[in-house]
């Protein structure tokens, strides 16, 4: 029958309170280590969350993008664009894709409504764009299959474009001019907003402003009437789910590679894989910093072990007295182990509190999102308890093995 744990905790707390300065000095390493772990994990967590939010805004983890590979040496020949025929071929090869949207970009288009003008990007797209980008109209309708078949003169405006050209009037049903082509406004896209992170805040109030400045026409109308002779440079595909995205990406890549006679003029990216590689990068960053924090914890642990060993030397006679009046080796062991763990866990709690306190400052200073989670608090706490257990064992064993006769003789 050992003395109850509660008794050891009471003894430990009393000892800690009695030796306040020593306890504080003992625990500084742990406080700093835990604080570092806390801050780093919160930053990485925040970075992951931001990346994820950005990916979501761009159509989620199902999205696969085919675009010109700028790492390719185009002097070897090859053209980073598709004809409509090639697009149809690719589409026929991947029936498992949920949605399929080739895009022709026309930069510096001028849209006019009477005396009002708006210059910006206009895309020739397919109806699937709303699925691929998870972005639909606010009013009216989007480009339909029938528009693509008939090369219809219709346009869907971004919210900012509509605002600039029509003010508060309803643009739907009105005709505007894109360069020389007259187009009827059939829809207005939903307003997009994302809070900028980090340095981005200096450039824009809204990360997604560029989307609000975009307008869309049927791909066929773009090819036949507005910008004849241009080719398709972008292709977005949506997989059924994020898990299928990697397989589908590989398939699309092979199809495109075959189509372009083995020349890597296009790169094929999946949002899921990009997300994972970003997470991996963040992970490397966090592993390095957590490693530094762990070293600080180890140093802190060694300091604690030293101080506990010294304390036990100093308290040898007390241990002898306790043994003489009936304490067993395991009572003494528990007393000192519990005391060490109490010190390190108090350090852990202090580290968490300090970490929490400086997180706000860190996030303000670096202009990034930091996200503290309950799991992190548990992690930090268990690490500090673990350090106490590991580095408390040796001193506690040494104390418990003292010979009572020799211990009592100690001055």
């Amino acid at each position: 029958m050992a003395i109850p744990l509660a008794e050891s905790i009471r003894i430990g707390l009393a000892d800690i309170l009695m030796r306040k300065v020593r306890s504080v000095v003992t625990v500084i390493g742990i406080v700093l280590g835990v604080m570092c772990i806390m801050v780093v994990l919160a930053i990485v967590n925040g970075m992951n969350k931001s990346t994820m939010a950005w990916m979501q805004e761009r159509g989620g983890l199902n999205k696969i993008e085919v675009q010109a590979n700028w790492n390719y040496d185009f002097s070897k020949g090859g053209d980073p664009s598709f004809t409509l025929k090639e697009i149809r071929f690719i589409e026929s090869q991947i029936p498992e894709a949920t949605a399929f949207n080739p895009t022709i970009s026309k930069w510096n288009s001028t849209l006019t409504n009477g005396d009002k003008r708006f210059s910006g990007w206009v895309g020739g797209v397919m109806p699937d764009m709303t699925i691929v980008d998870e972005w639909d109209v606010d009013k009216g309708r989007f480009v339909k299959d029938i528009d693509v078949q008939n090369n219809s003169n219709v346009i869907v405006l971004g919210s900012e474009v509509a605002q600039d050209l029509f003010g508060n009037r309803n643009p739907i049903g009105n005709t505007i001019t894109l360069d020389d082509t007259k187009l009827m406004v059939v829809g207005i896209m939903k307003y997009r907003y994302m809070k900028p992170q980090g340095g981005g805040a200096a450039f824009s109030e809204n990360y997604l402003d560029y989307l609000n400045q975009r307008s869309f026409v049927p791909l066929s109308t773009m090819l036949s009437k507005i910008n004849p002779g241009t080719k398709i440079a972008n292709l977005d595909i949506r997989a059924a789910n994020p898990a299928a995205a990697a397989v589908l990406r590989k398939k699309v890549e092979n199809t495109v590679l075959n189509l372009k006679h083995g020349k890597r003029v296009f790169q094929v990216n999946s949002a899921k894989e990009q997300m994972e590689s970003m997470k991996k990068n963040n992970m490397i960053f966090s592993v390095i910093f957590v490693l530094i924090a762990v070293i600080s914890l180890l140093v802190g642990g060694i300091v604690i072990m030293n101080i506990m060993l010294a304390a036990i030397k100093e308290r040898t006679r007390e241990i002898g007295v306790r043994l003489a009046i009936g304490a067993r080796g395991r009572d003494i062991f528990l007393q000192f182990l519990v005391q060490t763990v109490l010190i390190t866990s108090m350090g852990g709690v202090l580290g968490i509190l300090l970490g929490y306190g400086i997180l706000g400052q860190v996030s303000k200073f670096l202009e990034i999102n930091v996200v503290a989670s309950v799991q992190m608090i548990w992690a930090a706490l268990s690490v500090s308890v673990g350090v106490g257990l590991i580095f408390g064992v040796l001193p506690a064993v040494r104390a418990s093995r003292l010979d009572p006769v020799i211990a009592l003789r100690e001055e």
Partner: protein
Amino acid sequence: MDIIRTHNLSKEYHMGKVKVHALIGIDICIKQGEFVAIMGPSGSGKSTLMHIIGCLDRPTEGEYYLDDVLVSAMPKSALATVRNHKIGFVFQSFNLLPHLNVLKNVELPLMYGGMNARKRNIRAREILEGVGLDDRLKHKPTELSGGQRQRVAIARAIVNNPSILLADEPTGNLDSQAGGDILQIFEDLHKAGNTVIMVTHDQAVADRADRIIRIMDGKIFDGNPLS
């Protein structure tokens, strides 16, 4: 009834390469309720004998029966329990824990015995009242006189109702007035039926005991060891 019985008790130490025979073939019997003094010059082995009788140490050879239990063969952890239940120590230098108050010091053996906090508080108060210190419960040992400290130590030694009370030069650090008071307490405890064993080199102190066991060079050389 013999509360202590030893047979051919020997203890050897190794001081570097030299073998030291601290005790050689000690046979003693002490009866329940006896007051015995163990005398001898320093280096005689009396401290070693006291440590073995007090279950702080084990003999190299021989047997030691405490309350008819062969304790010399017990493992260390079992000896701790024996110390807790059957032995009360009083030391020359009091050996109170300086950061605990009087009450907590006296509660300590009860805590290691597994008694709950409320019961041990009641029991410790009761014992401290018995040694006349019920007005000093919350004092730290450093706030007490030597005589008062030794009374706290006696209270701690008897709080568990031990079979034997072992005192090692209990008056050695006290003036004659305080020393006399402490010896009176031992005599009272003896009269109340307790077995008291006192190690001393002071003949006047030893003379108050029923019987004196003299030790020299690790052997009993005088007195009547088997009473």
